[in-house]
């Protein structure tokens, strides 16, 4: 077994909303091995995004801890973790290329070096011809591709993705998933992906973590054994359908 890049131990998170205490996460433990594509699914409001933000070091846990490559996380680690959000959050006054370069620019990476690296990343996400376009000149899917390239800019070993395709129409969404697998296979990154689409989760992942409604905990970790590279046709297969059913029942039965 390869070593784990994310180690989550007995993680709990409680928010105080006025006088009330809201338990978002309860006793979440799991680990993810290097190079894997792991997806977390669960109903809306189950604490998926909170979990991701804790792993990213953006929010502190109430109990428990997260280790990234063995190091306990307490603040963002941009050289180890790249992030892609549901909204691409591109800077509207910068071109696609300048957006990808932005994290490196802040770190003082020399212009020619970062330009070369980021042009290659834009090429990887299929936007070579759009380097000089501004975000408003790109489609939703293209903007999210720029955001993915930007997430890869600091060459982190781990990419965290928070429902990155949720705002796209189904066709672009399917295509983006397919292309993301291609990028993942080429770069060998570890991907931790959040979605509420079961189909997307199963199609993309080596393993699907199923989360309960709030307070969120991991109900089950399901290995997805379809061979890679995967074709979209597997979505219609019987094996795929039965996994989807199983996950669906897990979530439905955990409803309070």
């Amino acid at each position, binding site marked *: 077994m390869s070593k784990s890049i994310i180690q989550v131990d007995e993680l709990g998170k409680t928010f105080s909303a006025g006088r009330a205490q809201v338990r978002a996460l309860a006793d979440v433990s799991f680990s993810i091995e290097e190079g894997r594509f792991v997806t977390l699914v669960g109903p809306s409001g189950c604490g998926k995004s909170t979990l991701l933000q804790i792993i990213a070091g953006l929010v502190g846990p109430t109990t428990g801890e997260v280790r990234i490559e063995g190091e306990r996380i307490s603040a*963002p*680690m*941009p050289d180890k*973790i790249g992030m892609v959000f549901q*909204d691409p*959050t591109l*800077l509207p*006054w910068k071109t696609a290329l300048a957006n990808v370069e932005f994290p490196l620019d802040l770190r003082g990476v020399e212009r020619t070096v970062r330009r070369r690296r980021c042009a290659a990343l834009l090429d990887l996400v299929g936007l070579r011809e759009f380097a000089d376009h501004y975000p408003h*000149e790109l489609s939703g899917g293209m903007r999210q591709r720029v955001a993915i390239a930007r997430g890869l800019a600091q060459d982190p070993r781990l990419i965290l993705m928070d429902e990155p395709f949720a705002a796209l129409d189904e066709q672009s969404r399917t295509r983006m998933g397919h292309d993301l697998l291609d990028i993942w296979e080429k770069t060998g990154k570890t991907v931790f992906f959040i979605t509420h689409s079961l189909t997307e989760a199963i199609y993309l992942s080596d393993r699907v973590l199923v989360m309960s409604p709030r307070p969120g905990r991991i109900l089950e970790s399901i290995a997805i054994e379809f061979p890679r590279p995967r074709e979209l046709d597997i979505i219609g297969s019987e094996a795929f359908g039965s996994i989807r059913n199983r996950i669906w029942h897990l979530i439905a039965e955990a409803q309070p």
Partner: protein
Amino acid sequence: MTRGRTLKVVTIVATLVLWEGIVRLGFVNQIILAAPSDIVAAAAKDGGVFMRAFAVTIAEIVAAIIVAWVLGVVLGVIAGSSHMLAAATAPVLSSIFAIPLIIVYPLLMAWLGIGPLSRIVFGVLSGFFPIALNTIDGVRAIEHRFLVFARSIGASRPQIYARIIFPLALPSIVSGLRIGTGLVVIGVVVTEMLASLGGIGYVISYHRTLFDTGHVYFGIFLALLIAVALNAGLTRLNRRVEVWRTREQESLHG
């Protein structure tokens, strides 16, 4: 010359001739309306006085603009980036902005004298509030996701302010600068007229008491020149920062 240009020149010449004629033929009292030739004569006679006054006014306005811009933007960004500070300061600032500030000018004169300093300070006071208020608005309107993104890529606090918050708030800041800068010009020129011994406002006011209407008009013309030049510069700046904002909105709705 193109036809449009010919028409323009003809219109201007015709207006001047008509204007001159109305005054010369005695339709309007010369104290009320100076003829173009009177204005030119005033400029020729006291050109040196006008230029010195013009220089004083410009220096005062530039000083007041720099201070008002820097104070307004810096304090606005600071107040805007904290929910509590914004809630505490914005209502106070907008109440003060609603007061005709000229009522405090006697105090400024008592404190700072009738020299340029009291006029510069009054100019700053006049322009500061809309700049600060617009800056606060612009910073408050920044969506939280940008700040989360900035932290996720390891941006330092100064970087978050300079590279994320400031540019995102810039369209709103620039519209504050447009309003504020106009008020700075008014503040400086008005206080020159009220009580001082220098600047265009003083020259206008002085010649008004002598019924030198030609001088008054030339002074007004010079004051207008400053206002028009500043407005043209700010309009250009505004157009530059507006470009991505409007396009962004179009692409969201289209």
